[in-house]
């Protein structure tokens, strides 16, 4: 399993480098390493973002996602390797004119109003969107005159999103864009991102929300400990962990469940029992036979979460062994 994954990853990286060189990539890291003193944030990373796609960089905190975005925005320089945006240097003003960024910020000037922030950022670009359009896209119509300091957390995030899109950029960098948003606001932002991609924009987003990567991304790159450990479409990543997840409320105890042939793991989750099995049907048949009172039965494909955990746990163990 591990060897197969490694092979897929290598193949993808070779193709990535090819795309980077041929210039169809909107942005990319070419054999990039970045250290902060003793800490190695990224090691020999090869990663591309194709034009017109949503690419999600998925990984736990500290994996190197924000470092990757900062390199692509030209905010920091790599220790080795090359960073490319539209085939050129990320710090080049021509390229900055075509990108927008939403970063995680500790403090934004609080005494300026929403429309003033947008007005200032829009002025940097040659063809910005009209203010009304930006406010509508970010859901800020009613907050136009509100001072930033008087906004709620979710409203602040939406303002930062507005600043990223106000210049009508071709390439958007979104670093953990839906952190702190409630469900409705999160979905609205996803909608907006999809609309942008439909208009031909390219989006690179980092996230540790698996659901978000699954819902939005055309391609996912899983990153951990400074390395890309898997890359592919959401379906490809999910297929790397096979099996089904079975959930039910049963009177059988864990020991009995584990004795059922085909069950790989079982655990209690409050009142329910969660079971993993290579094949669902035989296990479910036996469960129903052994416990006629069984209820709340759910069967699902082991999803992105399982794949992600499997990949990152594997990777963490390898990383620890190496250290």
């Amino acid at each position, binding site marked *: 399993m591990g060897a197969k994954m490694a092979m897929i990853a290598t193949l993808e990286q070779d193709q990535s480098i090819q795309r980077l060189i041929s210039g169809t990539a909107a942005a990319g890291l070419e054999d990039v390493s970045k250290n902060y003193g003793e800490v190695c944030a990224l090691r020999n990373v090869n990663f591309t973002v194709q034009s017109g796609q949503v690419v999600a960089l998925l990984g736990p905190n500290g994996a190197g996602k924000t470092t990757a975005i900062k390199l692509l925005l030209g905010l920091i320089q790599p220790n080795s390797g090359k960073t490319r945006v539209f085939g050129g240097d990320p710090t080049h003003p021509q390229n900055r004119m075509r990108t927008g960024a939403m970063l995680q910020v500790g403090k934004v000037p609080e005494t300026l109003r929403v429309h003033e922030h947008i007005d200032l950022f829009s002025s940097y670009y*040659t063809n910005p969107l009209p203010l009304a359009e930006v406010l509508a896209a970010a859901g800020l119509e009613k907050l136009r005159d509100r001072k930033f300091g008087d906004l709620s957390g979710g409203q602040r995030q939406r303002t930062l999103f507005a600043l990223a899109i106000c210049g009508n950029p071709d390439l958007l960098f979104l670093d953990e864009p839906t952190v702190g948003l409630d469900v409705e606001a999160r979905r609205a932002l996803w909608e907006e991102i999809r609309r942008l991609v439909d208009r031909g924009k390219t989006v690179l987003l980092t996230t540790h929300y698996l659901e978000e990567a699954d819902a939005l991304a055309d391609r996912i790159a899983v990153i951990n400990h400074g390395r890309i450990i898997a890359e592919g479409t959401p379906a490809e990543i999910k297929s790397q962990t096979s099996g089904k997840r079975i959930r039910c409320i049963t009177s059988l105890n864990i020991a009995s469940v584990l004795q059922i042939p085909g069950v790989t793991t079982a655990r209690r989750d409050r009142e329910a029992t969660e079971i993993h099995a290579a094949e669902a049907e035989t296990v479910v048949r036996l469960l129903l036979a052994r416990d006629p009172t069984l209820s709340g039965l759910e069967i699902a494909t082991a999803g992105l979460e399982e794949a992600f955990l499997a990949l990152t746990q594997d990777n963490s163990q390898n990383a620890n062994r190496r250290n």
Partner: protein
Amino acid sequence: MSTATAALSDTQIDRSTSHTATIYLKEAKYEFLKNLRLRVYTASVISFPLMFYVLFGLVLNAKEMIGGTGVPTYLIATYGTFGVMGASLFGTASGLAADRGLGWLQVKRASPMPPFAYFAAKVVLSMIFSAIVVSLLLLLGISFGGVRLPLLEMAKLLATLVAGSLPFSAMGLAIGYFAGPNSAPAAINLIYLPLSFCSGLWVPYMFLPKLVRQIALALPPYHLSQLALGIVGAGRHEPAVNHWEVLLAFTLICLGVARIGFQRDQGKLYG
């Protein structure tokens, strides 16, 4: 570093000159509005010099003389220097330290904003507030302190002190690049207040202890205050050019330090 210079030049982009000018104007406008609405900034930068002036120049000592110049007139020059220094230091250093440490400067750097516009806006902010402080001091002095200065002298004083805000803006940039976002105000005060005292901005120069008077000769605020005092007729009759030279050298040194900080930020971990 070639990438730094590439970022600093915006001759390579499609922006017209008028577009770039608009950016600089807007950056300055919003920097001004932002700080104007910050009661902490406006109050401390404007109120403190005015308060001290009213207390020491108008309420107490109003009829005294310092070496031939009336106290109210003398103190306009010294508190004017004090006010200009405060406006510049707080206008640049604390904002810069906060923007750097809390990630806002990175957002701006990631955008196509010409980096110089950011700094220019802060310098312009300092100059505007410097002008406000000095004008208010003059107003108070004329209205309540019996200060009589020819219009030309008043204009010269204003121009000198506003120009004198530049060395301290440079100093503020240097401090801002090396201070943390929360410690910046304290760091500024630790430098600002002793510097002001030792330069003769509170206790007039001639009343300072001998050792302090010697130290003052090396301090930029002393030189600026001497230029201002010279205009109101209370100077020590030293050639103005010497003072300007010291201020210029100081500005260049501070800009050099700021530039080191600017380069160092490329590899910084936080923010």
